[in-house]
């Protein structure tokens, strides 16, 4: 008998038992839905991490002294502090080919106060190049000048969150706020960058000249500098990294490569995407297990259905159905259940991903390969778990099947 007719028979038999068909399908719907949702969440996170890393700026290289190195730790404890100093910034600027911008970066926290409003914010002390490296543009006002950095002027640029919380409904530009009781004049407000994938508010920042930050807020004794560099092109990054390392080694006697970390954006991106790929894989595995359970559900119900329909199988065979016809009918029933279940699962999973993305404010990404994976897997589940009950049905002894009560 031709496949089309067997398909018709299979569909009819599924339609005749709508409740059973639906319950069987449910396992697959949930399984496929979970796979789609989980992968969407995992992929969304990956995408956001990547965006975040590229929002660091373009062709960025970070230079840090390696605090996990024992020697450096010993020096730190002895009070000699960080290996890096302003001389390094200057040396990198002047002696490394392919460097576009360089800025030192100091980080500290402090209480911000304007009038009666208080806010606890993070303060970043930098040079003017920092704005260019990080690609930070202004919403209004202006950046501080190099001359203000040189003179250690008490000026700053603030992020949107700080502006919104300290200056409710007021224009902050030109106003003076206090950082740990020291008055700073606000020169500009940065354009919003939104929340990072780690949930950090990128607009909750105060950027001030590094000279002022060190002398007024951190103190020479406790300063810890990192250097941020941008290369003129992506291709030049490895060379620039190497040159920076060499300059640091010659400038600081008795140091080894282990004392410094010179890491490019690509290095960071690779590390981060390794993490988020692991996350995606983990989520997908959990979802895959539920798909497997759905498949076992299919087998279970198909087996019950074979037992329940032994007499029907006997009748069909008595009027001329071959073993092959019965086998195909049951397999097609199983595949139909898993394919339709899979399609519904995709729709449900996709919708759930979108809803989750909106309510939880997660970034979501439904990729074609996750759909392909889910559909392929649910077909495989249908064939795999439909096969055994179908074999069982087809191999029934005709007389026994007819006599079965």
């Amino acid at each position, binding site marked *: *008998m*031709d496949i089309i*007719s067997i398909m*018709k*028979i299979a569909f*009819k038999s599924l339609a*005749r*038992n709508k409740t059973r068909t639906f319950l069987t399908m449910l396992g697959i719907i949930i399984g496929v839905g979970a796979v789609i949702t989980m992968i969407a969440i995992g992929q969304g996170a990956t995408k956001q991490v990547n965006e975040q890393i590229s929002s660091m700026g373009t062709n960025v290289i970070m230079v840090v002294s390696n605090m996990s190195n024992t020697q450096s730790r010993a020096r730190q404890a002895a009070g000699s502090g960080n290996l890096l100093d302003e001389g390094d910034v200057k040396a990198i600027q002047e002696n490394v080919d392919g460097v576009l911008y360089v800025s030192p970066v100091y980080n500290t926290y402090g209480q911000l106060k304007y009038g009666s409003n208080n806010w606890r914010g993070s303060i970043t002390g930098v040079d003017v190049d920092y704005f260019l490296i990080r690609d930070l543009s202004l919403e209004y006002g202006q950046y501080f000048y190099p001359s203000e950095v040189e003179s250690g002027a008490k000026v700053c640029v603030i992020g949107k969150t700080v502006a919104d919380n300290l200056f409710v409904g007021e224009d902050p530009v030109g106003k003076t706020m206090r950082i740990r009781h020291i008055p700073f004049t606000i020169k500009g407000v940065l354009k919003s960058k939104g929340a990072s994938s780690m949930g950090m508010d990128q607009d909750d920042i105060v950027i001030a000249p590094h000279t002022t930050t060190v002398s007024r807020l951190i103190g020479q004794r406790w300063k810890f500098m990192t250097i941020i560099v941008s290369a003129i092109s992506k291709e030049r990054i490895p060379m620039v990294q190497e040159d920076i390392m060499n300059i640091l080694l010659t400038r600081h006697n008795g140091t080894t490569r282990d004392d410094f970390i010179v890491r490019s954006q690509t290095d960071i991106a690779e590390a981060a995407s390794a993490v988020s790929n692991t996350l995606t894989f983990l989520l997908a595995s959990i979802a895959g297990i539920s798909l497997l359970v759905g498949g076992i559900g299919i087998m279970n119900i198909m087996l019950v259905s074979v037992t329940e329909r032994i*007499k*029907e199988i*006997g*009748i*069909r*065979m*008595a*009027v*001329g*159905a*071959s*073993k092959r*016809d019965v086998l195909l009918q049951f397999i097609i029933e199983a595949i139909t259940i898993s394919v339709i279940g899979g399609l519904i699962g995709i729709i449900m999973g996709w919708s759930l991903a979108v809803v989750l993305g909106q309510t939880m404010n997660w970034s979501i990404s439904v990729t074609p390969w996750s759909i392909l994976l889910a559909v392929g897997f649910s077909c495989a589940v249908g064939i795999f778990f439909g096969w055994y009950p179908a074999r069982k049905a087809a191999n029934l002894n*005709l*007389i026994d099947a*007819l006599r079965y009560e």
Partner: protein
Amino acid sequence: MDNNILISVRDLTKSYQMGEISVHALRGINLDIDEGDFVAIMGPSGSGKTTFMNLLGCLDKPTSGSYFLDGINVAEMDDKAITQVRNQKIGYVFQAFYLLPRTTALENVELPLLYRHKMSSKERREKAMQALEIVGLADRAKHYPNQLSGGQQQRVAIARAIVNDPAFILADEPTGNLDSRTSVEVLELFQKLHSQGKTIILVTHEYDLSHYALRIITFRDGKVISDAPNLDVHIASEDLKKMPQLDIEEEVL
């Protein structure tokens, strides 16, 4: 009637192995049945009638002996050929009807056609309707088995048996679940099909019903103990006229 031999069995035996014991259901049957014959098989319970019918219907395989159908040795047929024989040569009518539940009368009758070569659904429908008309149930085509009386269900089963225009009809106690009047009605139907050229082999417990056949074979302990032409053939349609008519024909069952 011409004398073409349709069925020929030689030394046919069938034993069932029940653990240590083997039950000899058939102990060497030799029979020839001509095309166009109407045979009634009688015999006490357990004498092997059903076993014999199952072998004739190619639903089961004999332990030994040979079965020639239309001159072809069934033992030499492969699965595919046997499936085809079941589908196209034989119409089986069972005591318990064996209709598919939750399936309309029409769809039940269509079933053998589904497993045949390609046929348009329109053609299939037409053939099934014709078969239902022959058994007088065209108006019940859309009914489900549980909406039909026992007699009607058996007529649907007969329609299913004849829809593929088989060479012969095997009916194993088709009236076993029916009251006496309905039984005679079923026999009337068989006589009608017989008059149209069908070969019919009928198993019955009831002596009265065997008189509607042309030939009566009696089984005992897995052997044929008598095989004789029926010298007193009754006409079912005439007997029905003499029987009391129930107000509602399907009241029983």
